[in-house]
């Protein structure tokens, strides 16, 4: 394909089609609406506008079980509504992609401004233990590439994969050259209507509900977890820029905010996860080389907490709140935490 000037959300829509998505269901919400607006014009894709986000993800689960690659897109409030069915999709092993274009929360918050407040909700938003694969690109080109990655990871793991974005990169226009020669993973499991299987949100073993068998439940959860880790290993995307100058500090950031982090490449080493979850060994290995770790994010320390948990040590928080990304403010905040 030739060069195109695309908005982030349009790049997601285009990539979804390239990945083989045949079904989309969603509910209008700022700043994700451009995705459904774009997709309705792609004739190969069945698009439904549902009555809410609960039914949006429910129809996506149904369509996926029926054999189609399927996706929904939303922002924080809708993502909250989807949580119960995300758990269902994990339990029933239904591959699908959920795009969450983050805006400032909680509640209605600041609907047109970017935030990164849904990081923990991605992994703990639904009840019970489940182990989602989460990607977070930081440019229009990456939104394109990793929408395809997300579909491949979903098919590989038979699980709902989350593609995070934010109001900043989803509304950003950049010139990209969309490639279409990616390896595309397709479904091996036969679609609904071809067997006598029972898909259930109950703890189960091979189509049979097992509602009071602890051993079976432990086996099931272990298998689901291992499956996610094995898949994530194949999509272990991150960006690590070692500082040219002497430094003992690693600056970790992701999504919109990681774009401003490049400004500090001569002062700190930079780490940017693209695969946000599960957190794999590379982050730990790299982080252990630094005395000081700063986690800069558009929330009050959600990813920082996860990193502390993995490293078993304190990291420095640098919250950028309220949707305002100002280089001056960040410079000041950084010099504040560095001299401490």
């Amino acid at each position: 394909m030739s060069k195109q000037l695309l908005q982030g959300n349009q790049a997601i829509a285009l990539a979804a089609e390239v990945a083989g998505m045949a079904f989309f269901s969603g509910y209008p919400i700022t700043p994700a609406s451009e995705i459904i607006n774009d997709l309705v014009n792609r004739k190969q894709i069945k698009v439904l506008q549902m009555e809410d986000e609960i039914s949006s993800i429910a129809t996506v689960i149904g369509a996926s079980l029926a054999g189609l690659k399927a996706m929904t897109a939303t922002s924080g409030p809708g993502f909250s509504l989807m949580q119960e069915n995300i758990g269902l999709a994990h339990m029933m092993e239904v591959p699908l992609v959920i795009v969450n274009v983050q805006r400032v929360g909680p509640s209605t918050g600041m609907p047109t401004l970017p935030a990164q407040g849904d990081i923990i909700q991605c992994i703990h938003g639904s009840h019970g233990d489940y182990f989602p694969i989460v990607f977070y690109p930081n440019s229009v080109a990456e939104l394109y590439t990793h929408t395809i990655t997300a579909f491949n990871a979903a098919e590989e793991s038979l699980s709902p994969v989350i593609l995070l974005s934010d109001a900043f990169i989803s509304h950003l226009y950049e010139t990209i050259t969309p490639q279409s020669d990616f390896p595309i993973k397709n479904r091996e499991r036969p679609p609904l209507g071809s067997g006598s299987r029972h898909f259930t949100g109950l703890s189960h073993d091979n189509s049979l509900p097992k509602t009071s068998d602890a051993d079976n439940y432990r086996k099931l959860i272990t298998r689901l977890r291992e499956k996610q880790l094995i898949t994530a290993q194949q999509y272990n995307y991150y960006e690590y820029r070692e500082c040219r100058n002497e430094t003992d500090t690693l600056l970790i950031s992701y999504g919109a905010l990681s774009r401003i982090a490049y400004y500090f490449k001569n002062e700190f080493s930079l780490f940017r996860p693209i695969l946000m979850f599960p957190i794999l060994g590379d982050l730990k290995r790299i982080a252990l080389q630094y005395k000081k770790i700063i986690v800069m994010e558009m929330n009050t320390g959600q990813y920082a907490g996860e990193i502390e948990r993995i490293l078993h040590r304190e990291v420095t928080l640098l919250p950028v709140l309220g949707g305002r990304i100002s280089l001056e403010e960040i410079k000041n905040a950084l010099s504040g935490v560095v001299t401490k």
Partner: protein
Amino acid sequence: MGNNVTKDVQFKRYLKLELLPTPWCPGCGNGIVLKTICQAFYEINFPLQGTVVISGIGCAGRSAGFFNLDSVHTTHGRAVPVAEGIKYANEKLNVVVVSGDGDLMGIGGNHLLHAIRRNTNITVICFANEIYGMTGGQVSPITPKGVKTLTTPEGNPDNPIDIQHLFVGNKSFFARTSAYHLSHMKKCIIAALQFNGFSFVEARTMCIVNYGRRLGYKNSNAMLNHYKETYKINDNAEELAPNEIGILKGNFQADEQLYQ
């Protein structure tokens, strides 16, 4: 198998017999509805491959797993949109939802409203027992006014939903039937399955353990007798009175082809 097997038993091929008994209480009417659905499947020769049953949560929600075909047991209230996703993804599939009145009209009520509006070509069979039975007997959207339940100890202060009114003026299909009127139930289910559009069968059925017992019914037979004495059949009705069961006359009847 073959010709020697009577029609009475052949419906059993739609069930995973090895999973019986069901988890339902003695005297529960759900088994009657489950069996009648299978008989309806058999009479119109629904293929095992190519038919999908979807359920929500609750006593009736557990019925999906007993069908000898691909089935999906979803979250509470979401059976209808999951079924719609399946149907829109593969229009060749026969898509049937089985769930309770609390699941379909309470927590899932908004989806029902919009599925009727979209007229999605699926069939919903509602096991309407007027109570949240699995959780012990709390008031449901169709518990009659004044009836005492665990959560309405002074009697239900609210009017029940008369769900048929959602269908008036729409092109969708509505029928009400009861667990006493077996051949009528089968007729309603077959008509619903053959209907080209959204079809809904409200099958009144009894919960003796967490409902009828507290209302003074001696046993489940007494509840069936109540259905027998209460309900008059009025098919092709403009509107069903509270003491009537039947198929609602709708816009669809103008189009004979829809019945095929």
